[in-house]
């Protein structure tokens, strides 16, 4: 039986939202229904961060705070969550939170429009134990654009807020929130319906809590839109003005949010966010970690899921080429059971994937690197942070006595789908691992890829860089001490010499 309402802790207080459009964005709800106009709309597509709010989720008895872009989040996904906006950071006596005071005192606001978003990103960064080093701060702020300050004073304000180590008025409330959230949680599928007065259609939203419930629901409604992080689906509504009349939300299914590690594989559920996957993936595959670090922003990585990145089939999803090069296996699930395929086989053509009606992406399995396996991945984009790649490429080779026994090379941004460069791989297999071989692989690459020109890059550039990535991978193997990177772990410090960067 469909309900009409959801319950959340808005600003820490139980709050019910009744009879609403399930595709109403959280931002619109806050600004136009809840009189919380401190949160701003800058772009409506999750790229500027002016709408950043913090969601608190109960996980294993603890509260996890995450910054998210409220402009592309659908309101019902807030059911059972704690929601904090910039207004909530002001203390009950009207005085400013330490973060707010630091920003004001250090001249870190000019026009002020981006400022509430920064405040909330910084709050989430600090509450999740974020570091005070420049790299950590930049990563925490990458999803917040400021056009006035040049960022320096904001970075200072973060450092100041972290070093002040002041307990705020919210800390004392956490115990209560945990109890309230626990009491609000329910094992049952949340089902909402709303009659759209403009179209006359009934709009449905279901949030199953188990894969069993999901499988049944999706079998009954194969036309439904599956919603995970919504960092793409949100834009279907805010930018493409599409009407989504049946949504199935996957965000409450704990089975899909599991990460497991065996001796040979890491298995990641489709519902695991990039933020949650980042630590284990960076440990085992540093370059994949670096690609994910630069995928979207903290706000996006807190919502976007690996399953969503794959399922949506975009040719420019950053994680795909890297996962394909790592020989990742995809698990699909439906009422008729599980199906395992190599990840690259999932992408058939532009907009077309190997996914049957009622079937959903359930998990991926990534083989752990072997001792004789050499792996590199590179993301090339117009801007380092929070940009979509012009080219993303990855290479994995297995070497036996200087001979390449197997090779997997994959790219994104150079064709209608993420793809394996088979012809290029073939020039490597059985050959000596040296520069001559790499050069022939670089020549062979044009048989594999057919990039296009668009606003991110020209076809020429894409081809050239796709080739040079192979060379770079070889150089980094051949002369590991040579400087080859401008970003990522240690690049800054190395480049500027001792102490210059910080």
């Amino acid at each position, binding site marked *: 039986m469909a309900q009409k309402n959801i319950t959340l802790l808005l600003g820490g207080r139980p709050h019910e939202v009744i009879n609403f459009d399930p595709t109403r964005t959280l931002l619109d709800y806050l600004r136009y229904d809840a*009189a919380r*106009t*401190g*949160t*701003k*709309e*800058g*772009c*409506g*597509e999750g790229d*500027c961060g002016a709408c950043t709010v913090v969601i608190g989720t109960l996980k294993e008895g603890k509260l996890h705070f995450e910054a998210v872009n409220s402009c592309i989040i659908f309101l019902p996904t807030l059911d059972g969550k704690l929601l904090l906006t910039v*207004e909530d950071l*002001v203390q009950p006596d009207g005085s400013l939170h330490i973060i*707010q005071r630091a*920003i*004001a005192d250090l*001249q870190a*606001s*000019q*026009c*002020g*429009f981006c*400022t509430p978003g920064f*405040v909330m990103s910084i709050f989430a960064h600090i509450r999740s134990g974020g570091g005070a080093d420049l790299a950590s701060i*930049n990563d925490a*702020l*990458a999803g917040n*654009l*400021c*056009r*006035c*300050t*040049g*960022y*320096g*004073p904001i970075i200072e304000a973060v450092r100041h807020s972290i070093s002040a180590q002041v307990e705020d008025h919210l800390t004392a409330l956490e115990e209560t929130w945990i109890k309230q959230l626990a009491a609000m949680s329910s094992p049952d599928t949340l089902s909402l319906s709303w009659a759209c007065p*403009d179209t006359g259609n009934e709009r449905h939203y279901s949030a199953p809590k188990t894969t069993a419930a999901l499988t049944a629901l999706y079998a009954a409604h194969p036309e439904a839109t599956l919603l995970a992080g919504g960092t793409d689906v949100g834009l279907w509504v805010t930018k493409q*003005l599409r009407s989504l009349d049946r949504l199935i939300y996957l965000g409450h299914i704990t089975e899909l949010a599991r990460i497991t590690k065996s001796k040979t594989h890491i298995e990641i559920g489709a519902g695991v966010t990039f933020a949650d996957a980042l630590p284990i993936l960076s440990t085992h595959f540093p370059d994949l970690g670096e690609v994910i670090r630069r995928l979207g922003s903290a706000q996006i990585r807190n919502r976007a899921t690996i399953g969503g990145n794959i399922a949506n089939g975009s040719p420019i999803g950053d994680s795909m080429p890297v996962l394909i090069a790592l020989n990742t296996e995809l698990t699909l699930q439906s009422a008729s059971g599980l199906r395992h395929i190599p990840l690259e086989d999932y992408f058939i053509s532009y907009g077309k994937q190997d996914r049957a009606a009622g079937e959903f992406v359930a998990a991926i399995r990534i083989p752990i690197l072997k001792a004789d396996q050499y792996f590199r991945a590179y993301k*090339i984009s*117009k*801007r*380092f*942070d929070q*940009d979509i790649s*012009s080219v993303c490429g990855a290479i994995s080779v297995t070497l036996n006595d200087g001979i390449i026994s197997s090779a997997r090379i994959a790219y994104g941004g150079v064709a209608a789908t993420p793809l394996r460069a088979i012809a290029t791989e073939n020039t490597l297999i059985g050959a000596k691992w040296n520069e001559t071989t790499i050069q022939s692989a670089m020549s062979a690459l044009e048989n594999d890829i057919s990039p296009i020109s*668009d*606003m991110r*890059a020209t076809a020429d*550039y894409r081809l*050239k*860089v796709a080739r*040079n990535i192979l060379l*770079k991978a070889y*150089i980094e193997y051949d002369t590991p001490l*040579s*400087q080859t*990177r*401008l*970003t990522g772990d240690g690049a800054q410090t190395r480049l*500027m010499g001792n102490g210059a960067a910080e």
Partner: protein
Amino acid sequence: MTENAPSINGDIHRDIRHDSAHKHVAGSADYIDDIPEKRDLLHVCLGQSSRAHARIKSLDLDDVRAAPGVVMVLTADDIPGKNDVSPFAGDDPLFAEDIVQFHGQSIFAVAATSRDQARRAAKLAKIDYEDYPAILTIDDAMTAKSYIEAPQCMKQGDSAAALKKAPIRRTGCFRVGGQDHFYLEGQIAMAEPKEDGDVHVWSSTQNPTEVQHLVAKVLNIPDNGVTVEVRRMGGGFGGKETHPSLFAAAAALVARKTGRTAKCRVDRDDDMIMTGKRHDFRIDYDVGFDSEGRLLGLDLKLASRCGYSVDLSPAINDRAMFHSDNCYFLEHVTINSYRCRTNTVSNTAFRGFGGPQGMIAIERIMDVIAHDLSKDPLDVRMINLYGKTDRNITPYGMMVEDNIAPELIAELAKTADYKNRRREITAFNQVNVYLKKAIALTPVKFGISFTALHLNQAGALIHIYSDGSVHLNHGGTEMGQGLFIKVAQVVANELQIDIDRIKISATTTDKVPNSSPTAASSGSDLNGMAALAAARTLKNRLTEFAAHHYDCAIDHIVFRNNHVYLDDQEISFNQLVHQAYLGRVSLSSTGFYKTPKIHYDRKIHKGRPFFYFSYGAAIAEVIIDLLTGENKILRVDILHDVGKSLNPAIDRGQIEGGFIQGAGWLTTEELVFDDKGILRSHAPSTYKIPTSADRPAQMTINLWNGVNKEDTIHKSKAVGEPPLMLAIAAHSALTLAVANANNAKDLPALNAPATAEEILSKLI
């Protein structure tokens, strides 16, 4: 006694935080969309052209009208007054009538009960077009001689003869891209109908008076029927100087026709598609020089893409010409400027207003000369600087009287250790095969004043209430730059009262009329002076009253730290005000200011267009990746001249923010139009302004220790635009880094923005 009194809070020349900072951080600073909506408010969305150049064969809006929630649809036929929202040329229709002239041009407005309904309905128009040939690029326009006005020429000396005689001569061409303002708060206006057909408009505008005037023209009512108000903008940068009128007029028209409050909040993509940007330029040079690197003659050709209409392009391109000298004496120079009319959005003001494009031209030429002679580019720059007593006439005939560039540059080069670091970079490049570095120093000299003479005026209005609290208003607008706090500091200083006794209020056309746009870096110079005049009038009235009331000589009366001292007596400011009120003294005054000394004859491009110059210099160290073209600004050192700063903290913010914004323009911000004239980078997902990590990890900003020679507000200098041009150092350094990698005879003709792709394409 008075000497020992502590000073007031919020005095001039102090670091005072932004007046709204505590509200920004709490989310309680109200922008227009934060004003509570009236229950019957209508949302307005504009319907756009999907063609770059076409005749509208038929316009069928039946489906739009029938869409859910739609209350009214308006086209050109519904305009009671003039169908124009242009600043002066009369060529920007509110709604295109017969011909559309760019992709994204406004054709109609739809008003609906929700914003979502209005946006959906606007997509339902059925428009039949007959396509016309579209001129999209500078090159197309130059071939077709398609201009928004006649090409302009500025000359000094005889460049043809000088070039002929010059021992060395080089020619070249490069391109500089445009830039979207990307103010975080998009364009927005809300209009409320009033009695007698009047309308009150809240507009996010740098130019309330122009919005007032254009709304009145569209509605066919006198200016006094329109009040325009803006408390603050979420960023402007020039993008809210002329374009807000389009959205304000649409909202006002709906309000007038329906009798309901109407709001037009523009979606980010629509904003980027429908509003003008910084002009992109093609720059051609023919330069002659000697073996010392001294520039002997220069022919410079500046061609810019103005878009479909005139907007402010004449003045913007004039300013490009004015800044083609930057800090260098050009004895023999001819600057030809072509203002191309294209079927693209009408380009407009953007921080620097053409100056950056002119300046980057001469900085490139300095690098070309140095490269050709294998000299340190800094040495070449130094020998070409303006002199103090000779070699000091600009190409437009103005004598440079305040030249501090030589000592400013020398000090920066010394404190930032330029020479040693340049050597270290050479060493780095010798051992590194795949990454190359470079360092560059470029200076800035930026002319301060509107080149349109009449705009160099300002008004202010100050009330003192009988409790001694003060209400301050002036014609300047606040877009984050800190104008309001600076002007309040001026008033606090003049009246010698704490700044928290002064209420800063929204810019409103019914308080201060006929205001100029807050632009050209002139905000504090003009409005600070106007407010000072108003405060001085009130102070004089209070002094005269006190002299009479306390029987004290006027020159024995001193205002200091919230008190007034009269010989041996001391009373509080508030007491005196209350006494003056009881004594029937007028406690409200206007103030007015007009900039002295300036004049200009545009027919011959000679005169003194600027009251003074602001100076600065920056050193940028960069690194590039030879395999991908990726690049990074590693370190920046800035020394900038703000005269005797009214508020050093605010000024530093302008300098850092200006630099980063300029760096974005020159590195990652790329406007991509396709062959149909459609802007493809129209959202932050595709148009990349700098993020936090793009800020150089090491950035040092120092203020030049000096005062303005001219009599400006407390000897300060303008700061809004000049720092943006400091970022040219980064582009120069990137060019040199590519040169360091190539090790070839010619300096690479690196275009801007220097994206990874652009850099890789210039690597040999």
